[in-house]
């Protein structure tokens, strides 16, 4: 009963005209960046992070969340029609989706992708409503040792799943921690790594770092190659899948939804891993696995449902524990912090309007996305023809303005350009920026919790092992750190390792 009252309260917040507008802007931009290859939700969210300053916390966070789950919808359009993933979570949709389009079945592929995404998004929201308050009440009992170990596990899982060698990903995570510690020490107020610059006393800003590493670096990488596009030119008809299509897709949608939701909750996991895992599962369960890769609708329905369910599930650790499970959620945490809010176990009780408003807005956003992605598909197809030689300079100008407006400081523009150049060379040498950004956000929190738990336990390191939740997290982290040393596990890791930043 309480949940229903809270949901009604949430809809009261989400249905305010200003919040509806921000929700629409979020899902529209999300679909836009999902459709455009080369720009992912991370770049778009980092670009729009300063915009959240202008409105209420609810509006800003509703918009940011909309960009994330909106991009999951939009990404499939490009994968199906152009065979280029709009964003990383839609890589796997290219395999069967584009084959379907080539066979003249682009309509059912787009249709099942949108309906599957809607079903998965709805399930994830209902599960979020039921699970989050329960988990938040348990999380109140968490101490600094549990928080430290959970964050350490999140970082290790992300480095495990990052493309390329694990030492490189771990080195990136360490650099992220160090960058996060720049500025005044929160306990002793001693300046650290500021090199005598007043601008660094408050630390390096999240906005210039993320915009540099994902926005500017992405443009630099994209300018290296002329982007070729093989757009399906036939008219898209029959968006409603047939009875046979529904029959073939029901199981994959259901399984993809459940699998995606749980993978989304796990620290370090997310939509990308979920879509690949769902594809592998459907291929394994299929009586005719040879159809996969030739235009099997199950290969579209499962992964597209999984990535949307994972996008919903990822909100649970952020909202209940205050721990972002992936880079996108780290940016959302940044939006909370900008407004002076700290997500965690007390968020639901102290700010019920905010929490339930965001949840309700996600449901409204899912309905908006269904409308945006089915009847208006023609508009997105036209957008795929936008010339990149005009788009890239505009992105650079917007990143410069975005960074400057977030702090009114030219120094941050210099920081962004520097991180853009560093990010470009990092990517060229095979170093992924995702672990760096997550560690940059988690670093100060990890340090704080580590020092607190050491002070509380009077220097007893066993406290991290003796406390059950902390012990389990650290054991899992250790297993993942050792795993790549075993050849069979190393192969498995290479199969699931993905470029989160794309």
């Amino acid at each position, binding site marked *: 009963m309480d949940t229903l009252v809270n949901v009604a309260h949430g809809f009261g917040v989400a249905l305010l005209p200003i919040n509806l507008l921000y929700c629409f802007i979020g899902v529209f931009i999300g679909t836009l960046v999902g459709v455009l290859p080369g720009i992912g939700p991370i770049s778009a969210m980092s670009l729009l992070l300063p915009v959240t300053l202008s409105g209420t916390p609810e509006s800003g966070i509703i918009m940011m969340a909309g960009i994330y789950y909106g991009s999951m919808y939009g990404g499939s359009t490009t994968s199906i029609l152009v065979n280029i993933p709009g964003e990383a979570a839609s890589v796997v949709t290219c395999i069967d989706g584009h084959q379907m389009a080539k066979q003249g079945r682009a309509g059912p592929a787009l249709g099942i992708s949108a309906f599957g995404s809607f079903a998965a998004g709805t399930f994830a929201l209902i599960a979020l409503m039921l699970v989050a308050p329960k988990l938040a009440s348990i999380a109140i009992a968490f101490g600094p040792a549990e928080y430290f170990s959970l964050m350490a596990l999140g970082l290790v899982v992300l480095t495990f799943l990052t493309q390329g060698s694990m030492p490189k990903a*771990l080195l990136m995570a360490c650099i992220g921690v160090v960058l996060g510690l720049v500025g005044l020490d929160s306990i002793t107020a001693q300046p*650290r790594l500021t090199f005598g610059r007043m601008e660094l006393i408050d630390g390096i800003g999240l906005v210039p770092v993320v915009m540099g590493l994902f926005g500017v670096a992405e443009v630099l990488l994209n300018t290296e190659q002329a982007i070729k596009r093989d757009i399906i030119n036939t008219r898209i008809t029959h968006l409603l899948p047939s009875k046979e299509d529904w029959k073939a897709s029901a199981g994959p949608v259901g399984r993809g939804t459940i699998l995606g939701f749980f993978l989304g909750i796990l620290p370090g996991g997310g939509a990308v891993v979920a879509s690949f895992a769902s594809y592998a599962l459907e291929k394994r369960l299929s009586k005719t696995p040879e159809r996969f890769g030739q235009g099997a609708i199950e290969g579209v329905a499962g992964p597209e449902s999984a990535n949307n369910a994972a996008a919903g599930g990822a909100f649970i650790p952020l909202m209940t524990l205050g721990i972002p499970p992936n880079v996108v959620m780290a940016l959302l945490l940044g939006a909370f912090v900008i407004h002076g809010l700290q997500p965690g176990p007390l968020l639901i009780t102290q700010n019920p309007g905010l929490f339930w408003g965001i949840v309700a807005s996600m449901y409204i956003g899912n309905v908006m996305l269904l409308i945006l992605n089915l009847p208006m598909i023609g508009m997105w197809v036209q957008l795929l023809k936008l010339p990149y030689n005009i788009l890239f300079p*505009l992105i650079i100008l917007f990143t410069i303005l975005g960074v400057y407006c977030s702090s009114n400081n030219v120094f941050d523009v210099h920081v962004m350009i520097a991180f853009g150049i560093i990010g470009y060379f990092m990517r060229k040498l095979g170093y992924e920026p995702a672990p760096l950004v997550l560690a940059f956000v988690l670093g100060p929190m990890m340090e704080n919790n580590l020092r607190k738990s050491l002070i509380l336990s009077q220097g007893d390191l066993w406290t991290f092992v003796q406390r059950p939740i902390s012990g389990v997290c650290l054991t899992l982290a250790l297993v993942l750190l050792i795993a790549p040393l075993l050849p069979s596990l190393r192969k498995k890791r290479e199969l699931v390792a993905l470029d989160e930043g794309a």
Partner: protein
Amino acid sequence: MSNQTNVKLRLSNSELWGGLIGLALGGFVIWSGLKLRLGTINDPGSGYVLFYTGILMCVFAGAIIVSAVTEGGPTLASRWENVRWSKPLLVIACLTAFSFALEPLGFLLSSIPLMLLLLRLIDPVRWTLAVPIAVLVPSGMWWVLKRLLLIQLPSGLFGIG
């Protein structure tokens, strides 16, 4: 990968360079941690986490170097093979010049040439389209930010903008 693009103990091995940079950064972080005071395990100081993170950095950088020496790695040149490497280089040069020009020249006088250069350098947009975009977009953004949102953009030594 051919022998020419995958080398072991050579200065052109990009993995080796990546590891060495990591090692140098790790060493610097350890030194910074020590300088800031480590404290004790009962009462960790400001440099405590930095020091141990620096050690971890050196360990991971060491692993990268060992792997570069034993398994080899792609050469620096091969990382830029078959791509238009001059394009990102030109964009980097433009951005660096812009970052130095932004404060003295102000937003408008620095962003209009930046846009024009980017529009002409990445995949050349014809002049008749590039000039209006380069002038109108920054000016439009400046007007929206300054007049509507009341955000002060840098106006530079000439006070333009």
